[in-house]
């Protein structure tokens, strides 16, 4: 079947989508957006997290067909043409990226948190990122990165 959605602000037509296919597979293999990672395909790790109509979800648990006509933002959609998004820059600056496999999902989850809670506490961050696993276990640096991103966003005029 054909699925038409908006991904990162652009209309995308996905062809030959299998009816049981996940949105994650369709994004990676058909839309040429490999940012969202495939690590568990069962909602446990969060590396495939994308915004679906503005809400963070595990794209491995969304049937591609369910995204017809919806609005998707992937990690590729966070940065502008020239600059990384503040959350991305903070992850780099804080040393919160090791192998990087969990990073795309964490960026979406952290981006969403800071939009909702501009000055998140440690418990806020732990709660918001509870669905994102990092196997390199750089959690302390990830906490630092989210604080840094929030502080910088707050400091901006």
């Amino acid at each position: 079947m054909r699925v038409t959605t908006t991904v990162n602000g652009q209309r995308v037509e996905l062809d030959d989508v299998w009816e049981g296919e996940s949105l994650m597979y369709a994004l990676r293999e058909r839309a040429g957006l490999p940012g969202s990672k495939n690590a568990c395909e069962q909602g446990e790790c969060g590396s495939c997290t994308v915004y679906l109509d503005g809400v963070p979800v595990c794209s491995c648990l969304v049937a591609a067909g369910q995204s017809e006509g919806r609005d998707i933002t992937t990690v590729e959609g966070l940065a502008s043409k020239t600059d990384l998004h503040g959350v991305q820059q903070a992850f780099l600056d804080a040393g919160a990226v090791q192998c990087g496999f969990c990073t795309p999902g964490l960026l979406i989850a952290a981006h969403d948190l800071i939009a909702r809670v501009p000055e998140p506490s440690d418990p806020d961050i732990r709660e918001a990122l509870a669905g994102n696993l990092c196997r390199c276990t750089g959690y302390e640096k990830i906490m630092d990165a989210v604080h840094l991103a929030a502080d910088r966003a707050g400091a901006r005029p």
Partner: protein
Amino acid sequence: MDFACPRTWAEALEVQAQEPDTVPICGGTDVMVDVNFDRRRPAALLDLTRVRDLQGWSHRDGRIVLGAGVTYARVIDELGDRLPGLAMAARTVGSPQIRNRGTVGGNLGAASPAGDSHPPLLATETVVVAESVRGARRIEIADFYTGVKRNALEPDELIREIEVEVAGGPQQFSKIGPRNAMVIAVAGFALALHPDVRRVGTGLGSASPTPRRAAEAEVFVAAEFDERGLWESRSELPESVAEEFGRRVGLATEPIDDVRGSAAYRKHAISVLARRALTWAWSDYRRHRL
């Protein structure tokens, strides 16, 4: 495989009636795991996320009529005051991503003995409204669970909504698991005080082949409260009553040994959860004078 995405409820019922091997999909947090791992290859998926009627809730005669497609995130944000037990349970489900997508209707569809919606729904008066092209029927929550991961739906039926009594008193939910997120309950327990009818409702999770009430413990505690005039006096709950209540809730379990916990542990854990839940709810009742 087919993929149907009806816009209306009537159309959805039509699709389900035509091909009984159609699997409804709402949040997909159970269905897609099975499809991704090749555990399920249904003839068709029926996407219910576009059916408007399922995505909202309303208030009717002291009940909340909860559309089958309302997510946990919305239960938490919008219904925490009216359905506190269900909202407490919803807060413990999976992760933010899972709560943004998973629904109470899907939890009922899956009917896992470990599903977190079941204990709070059992502890209050809840009716599941199922519908097919043949018509609608109301199923009392206690009759809805028919076996391990089995429910009372006929192959052509879909869940339209769930009617849950608005809380008339304090409610509690607790569950046990190895960490604070992403945990399938090793044991779960919900309790609701119903001062208007002088009843204490219970719901057990991960403690028997199906979610269930601890009926005998409910009768015991209601009799104790009546005899001691506790509903009126709101005096302190005797420890012996809480203790005996917990013990009797434990007797209502029929747990299994599995990787997450032994049967003996589960029985004990449920007793402890029940004693604490009663103590907490009672102290709320004393304080708030609801």
